[in-house]
């Protein structure tokens, strides 16, 4: 009797042990284990006086190969490990020198010659030079490369977006490369500054193959140490960073899925920076002297499209009337909890080329009624609005936005019928060429270039996928296409000022707002600044006081 009990109990113990042993990767056989191998073998607790900066993320990154991933959390981490050829100037979306110290663009705008920074090494000791840069480019443009990024099942990549126009690369000398494009494309310099264009060590690609996804080696201010899935990623300072040695010794990205728990951890000092903040918590953070709330307009735009080819929206007065009829400031204050600012046109005000004196349509229901009457609709009209339900990055309140607008418009006699579709069906319907409903619309920018907003959503070329209002204005098309080919930044800025103003006046959208990017830090975090791309650039400047 007793014996059998012992046998059974030991069986149970063995089973549990076996399960968990099987559940853990055997280090030798497990090539995918990534950071696990790199983990320090035994306890090495924080050394005396070591400065550890902890950033809380809402979700685990999915990959750390810049060319093979598109989600924000991965970007946050990668922006501290990698540099691109160009790099956004601090606090702006304008590309400046990065791993390339300088560049020249040919007269016709198709040839870019980059002078590379000398003396830079990847974290694994490999030299950064023309060969390394070209090896990295080969991985994204050459389908015959064994580690071509698109040869990974289900990969999400910006490679086509960024490098799709590249027709040739050439080594001029050890520190000079030339990249040829099939057509002039001025946003190229901004695209290659994106975190998704970070330069990976070719030796690492050689060593890990596609597993560089979990073994990132860059040239940035922080070196990858370990990644414990769904828990944390540890990075250590790269004292030889060309932009200056980081002021903290370690940088840890910790995954904390619950927003209230993230805030609690910040309040307790267990983390130093929150990558995103729940709007409900703004006041609580602002009232706490130990914490700092940072906010600035994000890289988003949000609104409703009005079908350009359908009555009554063929009349510009009707489109403008709807813009006057909605109290967007009130929506921002109460619905968006002050986490958004009113939009005047199709691009956010932090971008280059935003017209400084452009004001949003004010809330003026009287004016709206007048315009509707002039257009022949004194009693308003009925129309269908296609809606998605869930919150999106550019619209954190989801369908509540449509419900609010429905009420404002009802006051001027325009009655919207809301038709809600599940996200996949919504996108498919919105993007079909024959759809003639109004629709919720929004965009989060990729490379911080105005082209990425205005051309994408307002040019005739992009009907019906990007330009879902089917808005078409030949004058605007000319400007947008010229702005793609002009390489002088000032000249481009002037063109976008014109374009943004035309879009404001033509009002193909009911412009609603731009969400703010909001982060919170402990008050002793010094030197941390937001930037339009929302990435963690320039973390080498951050210190703990």
């Amino acid at each position, binding site marked *: 009797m007793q014996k059998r009990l012992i046998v059974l109990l030991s069986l149970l113990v063995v089973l549990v042990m076996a399960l*968990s042993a099987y559940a853990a990767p055997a280090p030798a056989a497990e090539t995918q284990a990534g950071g696990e191998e790199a983990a320090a073998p035994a306890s090495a607790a924080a050394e005396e006086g070591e400065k550890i900066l902890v950033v809380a993320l809402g979700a685990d990154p999915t990959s750390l190969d810049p060319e093979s991933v598109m989600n924000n959390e991965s970007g946050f981490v990668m922006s501290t490990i990698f540099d691109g050829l160009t790099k956004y100037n601090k606090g702006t979306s304008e590309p400046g020198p990065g791993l390339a110290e300088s560049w020249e663009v040919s007269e016709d705008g198709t040839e870019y010659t980059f002078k590379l920074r000398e003396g830079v090494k990847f974290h694994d000791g490999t030299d950064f030079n023309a060969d390394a840069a070209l090896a990295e480019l080969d991985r994204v443009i050459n389908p015959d490369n064994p580690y071509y990024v698109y040869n990974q099942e289900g990969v999400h990549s910006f490679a086509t977006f960024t490098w799709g126009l590249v027709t040739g690369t050439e080594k001029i000398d050890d520190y000079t490369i030339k990249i040829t494009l099939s057509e002039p494309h001025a946003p190229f310099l901004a695209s290659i500054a994106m975190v998704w264009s970070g330069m990976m060590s070719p030796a690492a690609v050689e060593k890990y193959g596609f597993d560089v996804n979990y073994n990132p080696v860059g040239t940035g201010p922080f070196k990858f140490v370990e990644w414990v899935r769904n*828990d944390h990623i540890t990075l250590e300072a790269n004292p030889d960073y060309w932009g200056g040695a980081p002021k903290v010794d370690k940088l840890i990205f*910790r995954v904390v899925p619950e927003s209230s728990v993230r805030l609690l951890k910040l309040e307790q000092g267990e983390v130093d920076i929150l990558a995103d903040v729940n709007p409900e918590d703004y006041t609580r953070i602002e009232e706490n002297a130990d914490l700092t709330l940072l906010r600035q307009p994000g890289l988003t735009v949000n609104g409703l499209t009005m079908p350009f080819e359908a009555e009554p929206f063929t009349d510009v007065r009707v489109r403008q009337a709807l813009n006057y009829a909605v109290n967007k400031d009130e929506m921002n204050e109460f619905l968006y909890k002050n986490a958004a600012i009113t939009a005047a046109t199709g691009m956010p005000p932090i971008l280059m080329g935003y017209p400084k004196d452009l004001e949003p349509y004010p809330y003026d229901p009287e004016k709206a009624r007048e315009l509707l009457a002039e257009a022949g609709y004194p009693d308003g009209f009925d129309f269908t609005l296609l809606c998605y339900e869930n919150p999106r990055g550019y619209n954190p309140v989801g369908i509540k936005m449509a419900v609010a607008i429905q009420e404002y418009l009802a006051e001027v006699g325009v009655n919207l019928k809301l038709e809600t579709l599940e996200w996949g069906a919504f996108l*498919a319907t919105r993007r079909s060429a024959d759809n003639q409903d109004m629709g919720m619309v929004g965009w989060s920018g990729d490379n911080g270039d105005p082209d990425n907003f205005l051309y994408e959503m307002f040019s005739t070329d992009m009907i019906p996928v990007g330009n879902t209002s089917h808005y078409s204005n030949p004058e605007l098309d000319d400007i947008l296409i010229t702005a793609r080919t002009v390489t002088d930044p000032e000249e481009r800025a002037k063109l976008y000022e014109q374009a943004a103003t035309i879009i404001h006046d033509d009002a193909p959208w009911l412009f609603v707002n731009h969400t703010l990017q909001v982060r919170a830090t402990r008050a002793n975090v010094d030197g941390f600044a937001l930037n339009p791309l929302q990435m963690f650039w320039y973390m080498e400047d951050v210190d703990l006081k």
Partner: protein
Amino acid sequence: MFKYTVRRLLQLIPVLIGVSVLVFVGMHIIPGDVAVLLLGDKGTPEALARLREELGLNQPIYVQYFRFLADALRGDFGISLRTRQTAWWEVRQALPMTIELSLCAMSFAVIVGVPIGVLAAVKQYSLFDSISMIGVLISVSMPIFWTGLILMMIFGGRLHWFPIGGILDEGVNLQRITGIHLLDALLTGNMEAFWSAARHLVLPTIALGSVTMATLARMTRSSMLEIMHQDYVRTARAKGLSRRTVLVRHAFRNALIPVITVAGLQLGILLSGAVLTETVFALPGVGRLAITSLLARDYAVVQAVVLVAAFLIVMVNLMVDLLYAQADPRIRYE
């Protein structure tokens, strides 16, 4: 007994097939095109077509299912659409955390719940009985999510007794052997990591284990009460055995049988509770993997998680059935 075990193990096959059909169909009847969902706003028509082709979404659902089944039999659960690791790897990374948390919660539930139940039964209608049963009623009614947050705010936020979420303090390293932190720390003699993990586990253990603890306490109490009114207990007392001996040797042991059943069933509840507990306390376990994958429509990982969970629950139930025979000599499996 051996035959019985083999038979039970064979029954596992139809159970797992049934579960796989349910989860597969469930994942695929959720409306909406996965490819559109995965690519979001940035999906060009070409990218969508390529992704549908890659995922085999163009084929009828039964073809997709049989392909999945054939692969799964070879131990291939497919690739995670989110991370592009194998689904099985994702599960293996996360499983030890959940096992650790569930074992802690179960131990807590048994160590606290059973004595409360016994004492409440022995001192029926006493003050202790009333207070403990009210307490038990409260904890059985509280949602885990809420319990977790409240515990965290009081004992982490206000009193600073325990850390808020996570499993190890910043800067504490632990070599991964089994993936169960407490065990790994003991195996490597890393006491710093052991205490760090232990401190981190206290609140989630209580949050997750409290419902089970309450259920066990109530079960033990009623089971003890029933046994204590049986004739043989009176007989044992009548032949002169001390009250204590009767309670421990005669009543308690028999009262345990239904308690074991309930404890076994509670393991399923612990696994589902782990979804919430791991989310609130930021623990990298299977529960959180399940929810993250479900929201991202990461088919392969959801299927792998559900199948592994079903396997675990069936195995635990088997062990419970075998334990009966030990606790109750009248039960024989032949």
